[in-house]
């Protein structure tokens, strides 16, 4: 027993030492006129990089959201567009030219001016592969949201021009319907050109933006500290002096840290712990509006998953209702589409594969596998908002698959490696998920299931699913301004995708967070990244 317990004790001890260490540090910090208002948020994993254009994971964007600003932004609780660095915007009648009017007098954290040239510099950096500052990563989001880089056939942005100090004009090759929603994404934040020139591919460790908080320190796998931007363009904000993002991988350990006052706010509460939080008067439960999907992807290029009947048979062998009840405490909906019902364009007419092991076995036999087969089953090593317990979910699905003769071995690896290898299509079958960035169906269906995004090593469509008809529909929806027509196109696409079963959509979860009751003004955003501008601590 001793040896079994010791790892847990060790971790707890390490965590508590870490926390006490930092606690004393802030207490003794010099020359604070009043008590410094510091908020510590606990989360499951560390950021990959703090260069927003070069990351796709929520743990990185959660931080950059508070350091940078985008041209336009979302409302705090939904994905409606509001002004940010741009105060006004206008599209030409054909939808191919967009002009943004920028705020005057905003400064980057390094003291340089924000202006139209800075916007152009950033877009050139992202879109032009030959740009000397196109470094630090693969610019995945630019590629998947704007159809590729400059010179690529599908690239939507033809040119970006500064008309004068406060006006920027975008010329598009096609009238991209979700253009404005895309520009508002946390990933397309405007960074200081001087800082990018200075740090080059190390910009991700030295982020400089115009946002409410200034980057101060990053201790890998421990914490990221940002401090109040005294010259923030929203006068009087932010209300906090300091914001710390701390990594505590285990959901239960993180709750313990919140209960003991070592954290003020935590992301990723286990649904089974919701009752504990509700029953504690010092804590409050925060729910994040659902805009995500957790799914099981089949690699459609690898046998036997290249056979549609095999994929359909396995789809019938997943007990989604059971998963929701067991691992989400009911805080999730069983999924039948990759698109969540909270986003417009959702096709409710799709009839889900019924959980029926006999029918699944029969279909598997028809596909030529009467005795099943053996395969690896990849599962994420870390809890995600759309899947708080991926290993357990994998084990549960594994048992059902075994009943129809499909013997699986659960494989897991370090998170960054997992993402890299799935993007490279190395898995036969893998769990993953997606949290929407901008509330447009394009951000789910095109990103996760279009053939444009099925190219290793940077496939966001990790099923490597390629269907020309689906592509036609999704592309048409992208360049059609009329929302009614778009809705119809997305509904058709969902029917085709359902029949091909490149993935099993498992659940749309309502992610849970918890905070100390003295934390005021915190609103969880459906995209999974939120600003702390209005958040305050009132003890």
């Amino acid at each position, binding site marked *: *027993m*001793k*040896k*079994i317990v010791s*790892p*847990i004790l060790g971790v707890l001890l390490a965590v508590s030492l870490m926390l006490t260490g930092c606690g004393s540090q802030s207490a003794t910090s010099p020359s604070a006129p009043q008590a410094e208002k510091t908020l510590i948020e606990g989360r499951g994993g560390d950021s990959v990089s703090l260069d927003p254009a070069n990351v796709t994971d929520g743990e990185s964007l959660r931080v950059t959201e508070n350091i940078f600003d985008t041209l336009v932004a979302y409302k705090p609780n939904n994905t409606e567009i509001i002004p940010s660095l741009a105060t006004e915007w206008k599209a030409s009648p054909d939808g191919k030219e967009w002009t943004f009017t920028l705020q005057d007098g905003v400064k980057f954290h390094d003291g340089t001016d924000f202006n139209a040239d800075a916007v152009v510099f950033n877009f050139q950096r992202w879109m032009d592969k030959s740009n000397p500052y196109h470094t630090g990563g693969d610019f995945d989001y630019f590629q998947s949201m704007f159809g590729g880089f400059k010179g690529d056939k599908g690239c939507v942005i033809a040119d970006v021009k500064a008309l004068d100090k406060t006006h920027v004009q975008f010329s598009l090759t096609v009238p991209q319907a979700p253009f404005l929603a895309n520009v508002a994404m946390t990933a397309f934040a405007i960074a200081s050109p001087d800082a990018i020139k200075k740090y080059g591919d190390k910009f991700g460790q030295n982020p400089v933006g115009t946002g409410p908080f200034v980057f101060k320190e990053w201790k890998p796998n421990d914490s990221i500290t940002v401090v109040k931007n005294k010259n923030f363009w929203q006068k009087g904000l932010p209300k906090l002096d300091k914001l710390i993002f701390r990594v505590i991988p*285990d*959901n*239960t350990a993180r709750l313990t840290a919140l209960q003991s006052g070592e954290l003020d706010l935590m992301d990723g509460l*286990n649904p*089974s712990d919701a009752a504990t939080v509700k029953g504690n008067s010092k804590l409050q439960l925060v729910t994040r509006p659902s805009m995500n999907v957790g799914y099981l992807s089949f690699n459609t290029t690898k046998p036997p998953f290249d056979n549609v009947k095999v994929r359909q048979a396995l789809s019938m062998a997943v*007990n989604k209702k*059971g*998963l929701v*009840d*067991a691992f989400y405490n009911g805080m999730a909906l069983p999924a039948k589409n990759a698109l969540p019902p909270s986003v417009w364009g959702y096709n409710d007419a799709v009839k889900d594969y019924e959980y029926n092991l006999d029918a699944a076995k029969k279909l598997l036999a028809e596909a030529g596998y009467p005795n099943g087969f053996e395969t690896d089953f990849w599962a994420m090593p870390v809890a995600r908002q759309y899947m708080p317990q991926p*290993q*357990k979910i*994998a*084990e*549960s699905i*594994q*048992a*059902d698959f*075994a009943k129809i003769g499909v013997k699986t*071995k*659960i494989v*897991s690896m370090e998170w960054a490696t997992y993402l890299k290898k799935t993007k490279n299509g190395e898995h036969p079958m893998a769990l993953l998920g997606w949290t929407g960035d901008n509330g447009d169906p394009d951000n789910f269906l095109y990103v996760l299931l279009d053939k444009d995004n099925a190219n290793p090593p940077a496939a966001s469509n990790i099923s490597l699913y390629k269907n020309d008809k689906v592509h036609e529909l999704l592309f048409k929806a992208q360049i059609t301004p009329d929302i009614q027509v778009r809705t119809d196109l997305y509904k058709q696409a969902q029917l085709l995708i359902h029949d091909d079963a490149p993935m099993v959509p498992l659940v749309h979860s309502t992610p849970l967070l918890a905070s100390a009751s003295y934390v005021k003004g915190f609103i969880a955003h459906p995209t999974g990244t939120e600003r702390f501008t209005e958040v305050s601590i009132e003890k």
Partner: protein
Amino acid sequence: MALASTQTVSKYIPTHWYDGWKRLRKQKTAIVGLSIILFFIVAGLLAPLLAPGHWDGQNLAVRLQPPSAQHWFGTDDLGRDLLTRVLYGARISLWVGFFAVAGSIVLGSILGLSAGYFGKWIDTLISRIFDIMLAFPSILLAIAIVTILGPSLVNALIAIAIINIPTYGRLIRSKVLSIKEEEYIAAAKVIGMGHTRIILRHILPNSVAPIIVQGTLGIATAVLEAAALGFLGLGAQPPQPEWGKMIADSRQYITTAYWTVLFPGLAIMLTVLGFNMFGDGLRDALDPKMKQ
């Protein structure tokens, strides 16, 4: 008194073994330990008959049920019967324990015998390798080996076997060093007996007693190490019912569903306790100084 009965048994059984058994029988703790071990062996062997369900019989509708008439040990977070899993877990833990120790003993003995008997550079080489291996914390070395081989139960067994080689190797080497100086070994050499024969017929049988004691205690350590590796996700893979893995999988429910952690934990504790008690008793019984 002892003399008369010994002669009637068989001349091939060394007298001190029989003496040992008689002394062992008198030690209550050793017998209790042996009973616990036998209990788990029987439980493991008869698991298919004793267990109320299938060890991977998942039923999400009855997850995290407390112990009841239907599920004596309750159910885990996937609705599997814990009694069934603990019973089948005995197979895994004992299997890993026995074979890991057997592997260490075989390899450790070969190396220890060679080092002790031949001496010189062979001894230096082997002893330094042992020193190097003992310089690592053993579980760290096991983790490293499993990481190289890939996580699985068999690889965990191999890793545990490797990390324990020096323990047995050193023990046997020191024993060989003293036996080698005995007159009967000199006599064997004088009459022209070969090295292999001397080692196998004279040195090995006389140095085996401490190895048996150490081996019994070693099984306890091996069971713990297997559980630790399982706990870290490096040993048994789901859905195998390995005790350490069961604890790791259930540790988040420790406040809400204690039984998911309690019963596998108790099983590990009792098994380890059994081997430790038996091993201690065996040491006392086989110690020549205790001879009457």
